[in-house]
C-alpha cells in the first residue's frame, strides 16, 4: 500500500511546485497584465537559491527567501518599463525578457555553470515543505481575490478607464501584481532548486512558459480554483496512458487551441459560471 502511494509522491511534488507557478501566472493575468515572464522569475529564484547554497553554503530557508526576494525585486523593476505597454507588446517584452535571462545565464558560466547548469544543490526540500508552501500560496491568492485588491485587479483588467474613474491607480496595482507574481515564481523556483539537486537554464525557458500558460488557460483565469484544477489535470493526464505521455506537447498544443476557442474561460470557471447561473434561475428569474 505504501509503495502505491510512494509511487505518486513525485507527481504530488510536481503538482505543488507547479501550482505555485500557475498562481504566479494567474495573478498577473488577473490584473490585466499580459506577462508571460513567470518562467524567467522562477529561473531567477532557482538560480539565486542554488548559488547561495552551492557557493555560500547558505541555509536553505534563507536561500529560498533570497530566491523569493530576488524574483520579486526583478519583477518590480521589470514592471516599470512594462507599465507603458499593453496587450501583445507586454507579451513580447516579457518573452524577450525570458530570452535575455536565458542568454545571460548561459553566458555567465562562471556564476551559473552556463549550459551545463548548476549541480550539487543539497536536496533539503521534501514533499511536506512543498505542500505547505503550495497551500500558503493558494490561500494568499484566494485572500487577494476576495478582498479589495482582487476587486481592483478585476476592474483594471476589464476596463482601465472605469478603474481610473473610480480612483484605482492602475500603475500601482499592476506593479503590485507583478511583485506578487515575481515573489511566487521566485519562491517556487527556489524550492525547485532545493528539491532536485541540479537545475539548468533550459528548464526555465519556453517549455516552462507554455506549460504554465497552459495550466491557467485550461483551468481558468477567473477564480483560484482555475490554476489548481489546471495543474492537476495537465499533470495527471500524461500519467493516464503511455501514448499521452509521449505526445505530451501535441496534446498541450491541441488543448490550448480547443480551450481558448471553445471554452475560453477554462474548465473550472465555465463550470463555476454554469452553477451560478443555474442557482439564479432556480431562485426564480427577476424581470430584467
Amino acid at each position, binding site marked *: 500500500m505504501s509503495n502505491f502511494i510512494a509511487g505518486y509522491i513525485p507527481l504530488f511534488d510536481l503538482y505543488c511546485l507547479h501550482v505555485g507557478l500557475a498562481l504566479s501566472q494567474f495573478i498577473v493575468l488577473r490584473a490585466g497584465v*499580459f506577462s508571460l515572464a513567470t518562467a524567467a522569475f522562477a529561473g531567477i529564484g532557482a538560480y539565486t537559491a542554488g548559488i547561495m547554497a552551492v557557493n555560500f553554503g547558505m541555509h536553505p530557508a534563507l536561500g529560498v527567501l533570497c530566491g523569493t526576494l530576488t524574483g520579486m525585486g526583478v519583477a518590480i523593476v521589470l514592471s516599470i*518599463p512594462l507599465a*507603458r*505597454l*499593453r*496587450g*501583445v*507588446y507586454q*507579451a*513580447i*517584452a516579457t*518573452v*524577450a*525578457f525570458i*530570452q*535575455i535571462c536565458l*542568454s*545571460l545565464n*548561459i*553566458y555567465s558560466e562562471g556564476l551559473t555553470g552556463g549550459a551545463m547548469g548548476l549541480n550539487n544543490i543539497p536536496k533539503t526540500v521534501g514533499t511536506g515543505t512543498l505542500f505547505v508552501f503550495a497551500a500558503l500560496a493558494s490561500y494568499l491568492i484566494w485572500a487577494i481575490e476576495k478582498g479589495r485588491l482582487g476587486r481592483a485587479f478585476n476592474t483594471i483588467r*476589464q*476596463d*482601465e*478607464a472605469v478603474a481610473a474613474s473610480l480612483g484605482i491607480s492602475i500603475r500601482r496595482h499592476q506593479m503590485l501584481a507583478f511583485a506578487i507574481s515575481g515573489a511566487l515564481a521566485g519562491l517556487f523556483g527556489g524550492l525547485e532548486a532545493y528539491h532536485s539537486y541540479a537545475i539548468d537554464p533550459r528548464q526555465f525557458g*519556453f517549455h516552462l512558459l*507554455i506549460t504554465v*500558460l497552459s495550466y491557467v*488557460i485550461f483551468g481558468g483565469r477567473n477564480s483560484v480554483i482555475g490554476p489548481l484544477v489546471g495543474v492537476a489535470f495537465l499533470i495527471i493526464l500524461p500519467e493516464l496512458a503511455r501514448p499521452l505521455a509521449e*505526445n505530451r*506537447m*501535441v496534446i*498541450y*498544443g*491541441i*488543448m*490550448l*487551441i480547443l480551450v*481558448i*476557442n*471553445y471554452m*475560453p474561460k477554462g474548465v473550472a470557471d465555465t463550470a463555476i459560471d454554469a452553477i451560478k447561473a443555474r442557482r439564479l434561475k432556480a431562485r426564480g428569474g427577476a424581470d430584467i
Partner: protein
Amino acid sequence: MLAQQLLNGLVVSGVYALFSLGFTLVFGIQRILNLAHGAVFMTGAMVAYYTVDGGGPLWLAFILAVIVSGCLSVLVEITCFRRLRKTGDEEFGGVVSSIGAGLVITTIAQQVSNTQILRFPFETFPVVIFRFWDLRVSMLQLFMAGAALLMVMILGYLFYKTAFGRRVRAVTDNEHAATLMGINPNRVYSQTYFIAGALAGAAGVLVGLAFNSISFVMGEPYMMFGFAIIILGGLGSIPGALLASVIFGMVQTLTIAYLPSGLTDTIIFASLFLILLFRPHGLLGQEDAGNLGSRR
C-alpha cells in the same frame, strides 16, 4: 572584411524580410500575433528537403514548399483564429492559439524527421562562387537575394496595384464596412494567410539551402528575430518590416563577425526590449500602438 560582411548581411536581410513580411501582415490585418509562423517556415524547409530526398528537382521542391506552407498557414487560420474573431479576443486568444498550433506542427515535424538534423544532398544547389572587387558571392546568395527581392516586389504589386490589395486594405481598415461593400472578409483573410505562409515557406527553403541544417526546431530563433524585426519596423507596417529586416540583417551579421559569440542574442533581445520601452510603435508603425488603448 567590412564590405564582405555588409554583402552577407544584405543577403540575410532578404530572408528575414520574407519571414517577417508574413508575420507583420497577419498582425496588421487581424491584430493577431501568429506564433505558429516559425513552424510554417520550418515546414517549408522540410517539404523541400523531402522532395529533393525523394528524387525531385530543386525547382519542384521550392514550389511545393511554398504551396504547402501557404496551405498550412490557411489551415492554422481556419482552425485556430477564425472563431476568435467572433468573440473579439484575438489579442490574447490569438497568442495562445498560435502557441498551440506551433506546438502541434513542430511535434509532428519532430516525429516525421525522427528528431534528426536533415541535410540536403551535396550540390543540390550548384556551388558556384563569383569574385569581383575583392568580394566573393556564391550563386546561392545571389539566388536568395534575387528570390527575396522578386517576392517582395510581387507582394508590393499585389498590395498596392491590384483589386485584391485594395480588398485587403479595406478589410484591414474596417472589416464591417468592407463587408457592407460586398467584400468577403473570410476569403480575404485566407488569401492573406496563404501569402504570409508562402513567404515564410520560401524563406525556410532558402535558409535550409544556405545553412544546410534543417530540423524541427529551426523556426524558433527566427520567431525571436521576427519579433525584433516587426517591432522595430512597427507592428503591421509592411515598409517598416522591410526596412527593419535590412537593419536587423546587417546588424546581426556585423555583430556576429566582430563581437564575441553568445553576446549577439543578448544584444538583440536587449535592443528589442529598449525599443519597446521607448518607441513601441517602431520606426513606421502607428503612434498609439503600445499604450493605453481603448478597451472593449
